[in-house]
């Protein structure tokens, strides 16, 4: 039997019996993904689009009910663009730019994310996580129809695993009883309490924060503007913080800090929650509770994200506080990073060492997320008198002094990670090249005559040649590479020049399949490009 651990919002992959279950010997699959949350499904879509056969096993048959993540960052949307599922997200999502910070009843300052011009995607959208997951699965269904080798098995619960020298054996429970299968590679995307991690006896270390937060997603007809509002010590939640944020479908996310010593059952009673909500939005505003929960959080990570043929991604590998929206957004960067590396090894004969760089780069990214989200937690939940003293000093000052604004920390919003120091990074040989697109960084978008730049990059290695000569078809390379040629004439706004050229008149960028810069030069040099690619895929690939 497969236990039902949570209610589903959408039933997307109902259980169906498959031939593997009756096979006399366990069937071998190239890649098995445990867990069909946003990260597992995102990875399946990426691998399937690259022609890597993959199988997703999820112990439920659809998307979990209740909104967890609501803020999705531009980089996530860019990744989803590459995967082909960003349009419905942005169409459905709520775009917001203004944030207001209150203390007691007074607004102490406001900010505008002021997204830079010339990007296809907004800085952030708010969208309930179930929709985010649904749109990924819908794109998987379209890709399957077009022949992508992706399979999803609902109500398939992984109950045991055993890692052998060159494969992994899995024990899976289903409504028709257990069966076994084998995987060349296993990716555990089974969430923060990862059963795979537990089965392998691996640690998940970090800090637990002693605080509780109540989430109330409510439906109301009120003319609140589409802004993020954050309160320190408001009259309706004395001594604590609160957050109000808009979601699609007329739903608002209310988040109340409750403190550590609470009566959980009492706080979750609908009457008690409604009382809190009314105190916040006004007694005369009618509303309906859509989803409520109390969460505590921790900032934890595994020591290593690769263990032989087993990889960990998303919350299974690392968990952060929700402040800053770094959970799912960080996990989607894992997908972005692992997808092409697995594909390069499985389909194109790249060295196994490339897979080690998944741990190297994404652990670096996760530590950045943990650092930022822990700092926010320290601001919101002072742990000793000094924390309180300086937090209050910052809030005292910020009402009158703009300089104190950067110290107010109600969440440092997710940014794409730049893999500075990665072993995959090649030469940075563009004189005084713009720092934002140095090797390791995710390419900045730019509007061109031919459409947005990012729509032309990714999926494969790409040589971006800006007013530089590149011969067609780089002979002798077994790595498939696209060449994108652009010139100053395509760059009416000057964004490309500002973001990629600096004072140079030409540039050649080697861009990885995940749209991160691998190396850059002023002019094309076949040998240097080949060397950089070899550094990444290893061997004598070129």
């Amino acid at each position: 039997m497969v236990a039902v651990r949570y209610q589903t919002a959408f039933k997307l992959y109902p259980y169906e019996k498959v031939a593997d279950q009756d096979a006399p010997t366990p069937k071998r699959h190239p890649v098995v993904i445990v867990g069909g949350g946003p990260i597992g499904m995102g990875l399946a879509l990426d691998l399937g689009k690259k022609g890597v056969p993959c199988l997703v096993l999820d112990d439920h048959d659809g998307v979990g009910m209740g909104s967890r993540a609501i803020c999705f960052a531009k980089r996530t949307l860019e990744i989803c663009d590459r995967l082909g599922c960003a349009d419905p997200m942005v169409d459905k999502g709520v775009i917001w730019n203004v944030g207001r910070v209150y203390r007691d009843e007074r607004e102490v300052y406001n900010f505008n994310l002021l997204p830079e011009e010339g990007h296809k995607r907004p800085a952030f959208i708010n969208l309930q996580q179930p929709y985010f997951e649904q749109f990924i699965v819908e794109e998987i269904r379209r890709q399957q129809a077009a022949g992508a080798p992706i399979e999803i098995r609902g109500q398939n619960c992984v109950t045991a695993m055993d890692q052998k020298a060159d494969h992994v054996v899995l024990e899976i429970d289903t409504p028709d009883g257990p069966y076994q299968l084998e995987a060349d590679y296993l990716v555990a995307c089974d969430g923060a309490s990862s059963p795979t991690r537990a089965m392998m006896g691996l640690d998940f270390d970090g800090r637990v924060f002693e605080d509780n937060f109540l989430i109330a997603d409510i439906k109301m007809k009120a003319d609140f503007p589409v802004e993020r509002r954050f309160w320190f010590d408001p009259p309706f939640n004395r001594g604590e913080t609160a957050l109000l944020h808009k979601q699609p479908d007329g739903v608002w996310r209310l988040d109340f800090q409750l403190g550590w010593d609470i009566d959980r059952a009492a706080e979750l009673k609908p009457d008690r929650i409604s009382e809190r909500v009314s105190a916040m939005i006004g007694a005369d505003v009618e509303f309906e509770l859509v989803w409520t929960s109390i969460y505590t959080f921790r900032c934890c990570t595994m020591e290593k994200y690769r263990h032989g043929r087993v990889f960990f991604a998303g919350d299974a590998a690392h968990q952060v506080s929700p402040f800053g929206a770094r959970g799912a957004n960080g996990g989607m960067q894992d997908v972005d990073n692992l997808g092409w590396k697995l594909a390069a090894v499985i389909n194109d004969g790249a060295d196994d060492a490339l897979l080690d760089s998944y741990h190297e780069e994404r652990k670096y990214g996760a530590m950045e997320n943990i650092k930022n989200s822990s700092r926010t937690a320290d601001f919101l939940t002072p742990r000793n008198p000094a924390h309180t003293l300086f937090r209050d000093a910052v809030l005292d000052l910020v009402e009158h002094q703009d300089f104190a604004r950067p110290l107010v920390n109600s969440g440092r919003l997710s940014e794409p990670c730049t893999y500075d120091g990665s072993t995959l990074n090649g030469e940075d040989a563009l004189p005084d090249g713009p720092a934002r697109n140095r090797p390791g960084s995710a390419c900045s978008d730019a509007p061109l005559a031919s459409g947005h730049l990012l729509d032309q990059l990714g999926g494969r290695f790409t040589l971006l040649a800006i007013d530089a000569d590149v011969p067609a078809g780089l002979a002798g390379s077994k790595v498939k590479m696209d060449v994108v040629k652009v010139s100053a004439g395509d760059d009416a706004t000057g964004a490309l020049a500002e973001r990629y050229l600096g004072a140079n008149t030409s540039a050649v960028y080697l861009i990885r399949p995940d749209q991160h810069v691998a190396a850059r030069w002023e002019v094309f040099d076949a040998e240097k490009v080949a060397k950089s690619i070899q550094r990444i895929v290893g061997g004598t690939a070129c």
Partner: protein
Amino acid sequence: MLSQLQTAPNFEKADDFYAALLAAHEGLDEAQMHALNARLILVLANHIGDQAVLEAAITVAKGASTTRQM
């Protein structure tokens, strides 16, 4: 160019500064004094800005503790 923490005497009018500091604390209870000092640190830190200098200042201040705490 690496900026360095100024540890040689640098006050324009040391006695006047010290008097102003004491005067600012006049009539405050202990919590208010702590709060004032915390705000003052933040104002000065912003003026300095340079992270290396600020960290050096924290180290100097910690090292001068008479109770020899870490």
